[in-house]
């Protein structure tokens, strides 16, 4: 469990990126921080592995205050996946995945065996192990990034807009893959995005942020869609338009759902057992 208690961050240039932020991120669930740029979402994520230190307030991981943990050690036990993969261009795929175990002193052979297993886990062909990142597609690089994040089998996985830079089809693919991984691996995932659809798809808990890390609303995707807490949230999630504003029309005795653009989205049926 990750707990923020009244955390604030003011950068050296005076910007207040995060103002009095409190939140509990439950273990083994995916918490998605979603907001526009300037909402402080990435700053919040980076506080968890001390890439950024809070100016005030407390941040605990399983009851342990992160400020008491040496940053380098802390980072080595937390998985981190970022936009554009952040892979080391001068290391082969297998060495990139084995990076953190090697830093922790795991023997090379063992680290490489584990890296190959992880390539299976994230759906990468083992043949790619000897390639350099520049020889992979964007989607493949992102998979390597995820494999690297999982290499030390961390409890916590931080993901900073990991699928933001790949094309929509690959992104959809990677999102499904992450859902599958999360079912299998049961990590505490903190995921940052500006894409509300992605947030609703991946999040157990979705936290919608306004400027300065102010929480506009938090809850499950269903709760937020059912009851947007404010006009800001309603407009952010697009409740009033497009494919979220479904209306019922009766055609030939059957009830059909029509979206905000007038396109038929589906047919209304009784919900079956979940």
């Amino acid at each position, binding site marked *: 469990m990750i707990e923020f208690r009244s955390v604030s961050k003011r950068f050296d240039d005076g910007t207040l990126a995060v103002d009095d932020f409190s939140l509990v991120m439950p273990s083994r669930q995916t918490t998605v921080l979603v907001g526009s740029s300037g909402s402080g979402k990435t700053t919040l994520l980076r506080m968890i592995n001390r890439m950024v230190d809070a100016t005030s307030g407390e941040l605990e991981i399983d009851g342990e205050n992160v400020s008491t943990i040496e940053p*380098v050690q802390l*980072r080595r036990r937390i998985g*981190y996946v970022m936009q554009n993969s*952040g*892979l080391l261009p*001068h290391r082969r795929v297998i060495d990139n995945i084995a990076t953190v175990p090697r830093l922790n002193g795991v023997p090379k052979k063992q680290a490489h065996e584990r890296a190959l297993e992880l390539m299976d886990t994230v759906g990468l062909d083992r043949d790619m192990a000897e390639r350099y990142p520049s*020889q992979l*597609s*964007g989607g493949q690089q992102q998979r390597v990034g995820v494999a690297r994040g999982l290499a030390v089998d961390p409890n916590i996985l931080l993901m900073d807009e990991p699928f933001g830079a*790949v094309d929509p089809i690959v992104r959809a693919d990677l999102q499904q893959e992450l859902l599958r991984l999360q079912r299998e691996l049961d990590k505490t995932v903190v995921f940052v995005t500006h894409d509300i659809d992605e947030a609703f798809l991946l999040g157990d808990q979705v936290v919608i942020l306004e400027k300065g890390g102010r929480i506009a609303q938090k809850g499950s995707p269903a709760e937020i869609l059912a009851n947007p807490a404010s006009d800001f949230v309603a407009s952010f999630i697009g409740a009033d338009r497009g494919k979220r504003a479904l209306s019922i029309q009766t055609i030939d005795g059957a009830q059909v759902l029509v979206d905000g653009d007038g396109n038929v989205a589906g047919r209304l049926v009784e919900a079956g057992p979940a």
Partner: protein
Amino acid sequence: MTWVLNNLGLILELTLVHIRLSVLPIVLGFVIAIPLGWLAYRYRLTRGLILTLVGLLYTIPSLALFVILPPLLGIGFLSEANVLIALTIYAVAIMARSVAEALQSVDADVRQAATAVGYSSWSRFWTVDFPLAGPVLLAGLRVVAVSTVSLLTFGIVVGVQSLGYLFTNGFQRGIVEEVLAGVVMTVIVALLFDGALVLLGRALMPWTRAARALPASPPRVAMA
């Protein structure tokens, strides 16, 4: 050609001496430039200071340096050390700026990713920043190598043997062939060093050619 053919032994000997004397200033210059370049790259304050200083160093005429150094360091005017130290200073002057630029050239995202996954600053410098700065470092080192090989010929004015001997000797005795032999051999030695550095770069930085070897990922633009 007669002079050349009659003096092959001398030319070869001077070439070997020239190579031997060039190596030390190149290596030392590179090693000394690393911390200086790092300081220039890392802190705004030291940046201006160091880059101005090394810039000035390079403008000192080599003859003047050969005269200033001995009393300063307590070495003989005619010693090899005098020339080697002077050449090392020039190498540092060129290389320090190169090191700063090379470190600057490393992608900030990669640097930050390395920190995020748990590199300490020391290990990140040597295993991430430094190797990734490699291509720009190599470019600087190639300039240093060629410049050192050519500057070494000046050493002859303080009596240190090198291919420069062929210049002065040929000039004094009016043998054009000898002077030309010196020029050609100096160029060849410079090319040898350059070629060796390029090969070394390929061996140490296989990833720089990997991108071109295979039809790689969709263009970078699509991922920006």
